């Protein structure tokens, strides 16, 4: 015979188990709308039955069940889906960062339906055409001045806005990195608690949920992965580098790079090594800041300096209504502060570079005549390694062929014929570092093309070559000083202005051409006042004459190129982000399907548990009656 009171224990155990089940159910329902919550189920198992194999077991039929026990609280969650979601979130945030900033750039540039830079350029062109029609009228001159001011203001304004956007991206990098460190710290603290609880034999399910949420938040910022090798040590990796390892974490710090206008980069505080990121919002922001926005700003800078240089060079050769000549239309602030174009590039206090943007030859040339000479022109690309590029030319080549060859080689220097049909060589945006923008690196000709024919270099061969890395290189040129334009000060788009002379006196705008009296190699006597041919030359250079802006032939072509690039980049970012968003929704649905709380389910279960609880109470009642019979009725008189 078994123990008298054993039935009670079974009942009580039943009550307890079901109470816990109901409690957990209540917890589930309470968290029905918590996205980060994984539903929990009490796992009921039987209590250890009697009797264990031993010599002192009672001689009754066994084993007798001893009721139920809530052995552990199960958390229903699929770690694999979590991983997929993490990766998708990382990629989605990477593309979203790009999408958001590119959209802002689109808004700034206002194409196609707003008042754009293109409108301003068009209006300036029209103003010069009208000036060519009426070069003697002050009214038309004032219009040219106003339209030019309109264009320069717009360029400066666009630069400011783009630069502000860049700084905003930089600030966001800072904020997100701080968030990153905070999340890492939170994960570390949770790790501590969880390890302790696990050691005590508990299932800290809610803490697991919290930790998973933190990891998910982290994945929005950087590309994280979880280390699953060691059960006791929860590891969070960024790529191959450890962020959190159990109780320990590695701090990430931001170091400003003075070489690149103070942009902030991420470094590990302990090893001072760079944090290698592949995806996530922070990486997206870094790419926006360092590549996308930098490129757009450089495009604007190139537009500005090419505009200034092209118009100035034609303008200087012309005459104003008041007979003035050699007047700059735009002010140019140059990098170099001395007359030899020399500059201190590495900041050690000694001039080490000759910074030239453009040089035009002395002689007027015919584009279609065979050269009659041969040789090789050597240029250096303005990349990190200064790769040499060789442009050969032979007797039957025409000048047009050589110009095309130079431009197609994309060697950092572009060639064209200017308004006087002189060969003009211009520098482009640097592939190495923004500080080296608009500097011709190297000009060398083994033959006579650049020397005697075009009138640019004084002598051929290596000895006569111009190299930007040395000082005093200006004397390698035989070109006239006014045909050499020094490299502009950084960011020409931020300081483009009409010259003081033109602002004060519109009659100085050089609409007429002149002639060279006395053979001084410079035009010194103007044609009559009705001559608008210089204004026409400026108009032509703004429109259809190949002036070469970067590797595009005309200003219009260059502008269209930048807008097309922006459009495709923005579209790609939008589409990639869209794809990830849809994928994310699908995965989250899948996850919810596994770990989400279904109210109907819980309701049904609640009825079930409640009935079982009632039944267990009934069992206790019954036991009570049995005991009552034994105690109060058995053998009582």
């Amino acid at each position: 015979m078994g123990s008298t009171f054993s039935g009670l224990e079974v009942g009580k155990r039943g009550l307890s188990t079901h109470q816990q089940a109901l409690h957990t159910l209540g917890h589930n329902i309470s968290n029905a709308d918590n996205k980060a919550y994984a539903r929990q189920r009490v796992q009921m198992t039987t209590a250890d039955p009697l009797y264990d194999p031993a010599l002192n077991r009672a001689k009754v039929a066994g084993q007798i069940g001893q009721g139920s026990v809530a052995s552990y609280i199960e958390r229903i969650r699929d770690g694999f889906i979590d991983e997929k979601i993490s990766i998708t979130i990382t990629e989605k945030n990477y593309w979203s960062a790009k999408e958001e900033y590119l959209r802002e750039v689109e808004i700034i540039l206002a194409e196609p339906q707003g008042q754009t830079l293109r409108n301003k350029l068009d209006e300036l062109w029209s103003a010069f055409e009208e000036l060519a029609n009426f070069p003697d009228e002050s009214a038309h001159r004032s219009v040219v001045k106003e339209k030019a001011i309109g264009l320069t203001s717009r360029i400066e304004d666009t630069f400011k806005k783009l630069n502000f956007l860049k700084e905003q991206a930089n600030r966001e990098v800072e904020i997100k990195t701080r968030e990153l460190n905070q999340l890492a710290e939170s994960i570390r603290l949770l790790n501590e608690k969880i390890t302790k609880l696990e050691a005590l034999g508990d299932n800290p399910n809610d803490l697991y949920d919290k930790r998973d949420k933190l990891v998910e938040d982290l994945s929005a910022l950087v590309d994280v992965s979880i280390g699953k090798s060691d059960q006791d040590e929860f590891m969070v990796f960024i790529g191959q580098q450890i962020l959190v390892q159990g109780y320990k974490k590695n701090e990430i710090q931001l170091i400003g790079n003075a070489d690149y206008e103070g942009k902030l980069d991420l470094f590990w505080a302990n090893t001072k090594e760079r944090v290698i990121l592949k995806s996530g919002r922070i990486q997206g922001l870094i790419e926006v800041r360092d590549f996308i926005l930098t490129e757009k700003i450089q495009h604007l800078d190139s537009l500005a300096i090419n505009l200034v240089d092209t118009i100035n060079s034609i303008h200087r050769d012309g005459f104003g209504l008041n007979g003035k000549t050699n007047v700059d239309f735009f002010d140019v602030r140059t990098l170099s502060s001395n007359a030899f174009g020399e500059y201190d590039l590495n900041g050690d206090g000694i001039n080490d570079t000759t910074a030239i943007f453009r040089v035009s030859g002395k002689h007027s040339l015919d584009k279609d005549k065979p050269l009659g000479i041969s040789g090789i022109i050597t240029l250096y690309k303005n990349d990190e390694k200064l790769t040499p590029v060789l442009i050969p030319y032979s007797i039957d080549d025409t000048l047009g062929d050589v110009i095309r060859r130079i431009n197609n080689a994309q060697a950092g220097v572009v060639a064209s014929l200017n308004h006087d049909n002189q060969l003009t060589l211009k520098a482009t945006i640097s592939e190495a570092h923004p500080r080296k923008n608009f500097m011709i690196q190297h000009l060398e000709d083994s033959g006579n093309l650049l020397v005697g024919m075009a009138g640019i270099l004084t002598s051929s061969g290596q000895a006569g070559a111009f190299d930007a890395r040395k000082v005093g290189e200006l004397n390698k040129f035989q070109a006239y000083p006014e045909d050499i334009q020094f490299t502009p000060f950084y960011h020409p788009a931020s300081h483009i202005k009409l010259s003081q002379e033109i602002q004060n006196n519109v009659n100085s705008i050089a609409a007429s051409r002149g002639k060279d009296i006395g053979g001084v190699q410079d035009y010194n006597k103007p044609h009559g006042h009705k001559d608008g041919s210089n204004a026409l030359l400026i108009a032509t250079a703004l429109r259809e004459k190949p002036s070469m802006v970067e590797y595009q032939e005309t200003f219009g072509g260059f502008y269209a190129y930048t807008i097309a690039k922006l459009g495709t980049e923005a579209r790609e970012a939008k589409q990639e982000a869209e794809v990830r968003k849809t994928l994310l929704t699908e995965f989250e649905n899948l996850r919810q399907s596994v770990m989400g709380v279904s109210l109907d389910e819980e309701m049904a279960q609640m009825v079930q548990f409640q009935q079982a609880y009632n039944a267990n109470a009934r069992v206790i009642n019954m036991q009570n009656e049995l005991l009552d019979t034994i105690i109060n009725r058995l053998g009582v008189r």
Partner: protein
Amino acid sequence: MRITNQMTNNSLVRNLGRQQEDLDELHSQIGTGFKFRKPSDEPANVTNGIFFKNRLHELNQFEKNLADGKSRLQQIDGVLETVTDILQRVRVLTVQAANGIYQGDKGFELEVAIGREIDEHLKALTDLANSRDATGKYIFGGHTIDRKPFEIIETRQKGLKGLFVKDQIVGVEYRGDIGEQIREIDKGEYLGVTIPGNKVFWGTNMSVTSAKDSYEYTATSEQKIRIDGVEISISAGDKLDDIIDKINTAPIEVKATKLGNNNISLTTTSPHQIWLEDIEGGTVLRDLGLIETNASEPPGNYSRTATVSGLSIFDVLIQLRNDLTAKDQERIGGKDLGDIDQALENILRYRSVVGAKVNRLESHEHRIAFDKTFMTELLANNEGVDLAEAIMNLKWAESVHTYALNVGARIIRPTLLDFLR
């Protein structure tokens, strides 16, 4: 698959959100009339749109240039018409004077009547030559507008018998230059819309003959000369024959020949005033004896030793008037008549040139108008929204949205709770 409440709600919200996005897009399209608002919506179309808009802007400007050019040319034509009338009248008078039908007492009619009339015509022609355009600037001065193109030179001399003794016009000097005003009528296409006065108002062919024997002459270095505004390069070592060849092959209406004394002579092939210049420090024309050594600007720079012949229209009339005073009937009927005929021919030639240019401008005008329509259409197709289509889409999107709201509302409401006791 197990569905939870969150999933149903998420689906509903997501679908509604997507529909709202579509509705918003359609609203924007209909509201603005444009298919896209940012380059990222349709990068290729936006790029095309930029090119179309550029072209439209150009076409508008070229239209303006064209209209201005046409009105100028038409004004020139008007002036030339009046000049023709005057010259015709002068010709009639010349023929009459030469025929001797006016024999009267000591040729009174010749001197007084006809002479006076010629004088008036001379003044009229000078006024016409100094015509101004709509903004008050001289049209026949080339690029010079700060002084009159044609300046009358008067001296006191014995007046025509019977006329008040006063200053007589003895010459009309050209003070303008040979610049042509050009208008850009299409990308890279330029048209001159004025003619300098020393071409139009020229009567006979001109020649400048040097007195210098240039047999030994060799050019010492590379130099440039400019004749009638066209640059000719002279290389080092060129002799007289080489220079004559270069001048003859240049695109100018001037012919160079070598005369008996190895002196160079330049003659026009159509009546105009020859403009000679040494530029960029060269001295070739000076060395050949065509230009004065310390010369001023053309046209007053012919060498004093050179023989210059050739008459402007004014010179022809002055010559006629003087011949009338001298009663030289033979000259009147011979040389003078011939010169007047040449002058008339020249004017007619220029009238046809102007006429041809006006024709070209008119056909160009038509082309530009057509281009503009075409471009506008292309642009509209490129970025304009088809309203009918968009409104239909909007209606459909709205209905779908309503259905979704309806169904969604039904699904998310009932739970087991509603049915448990």
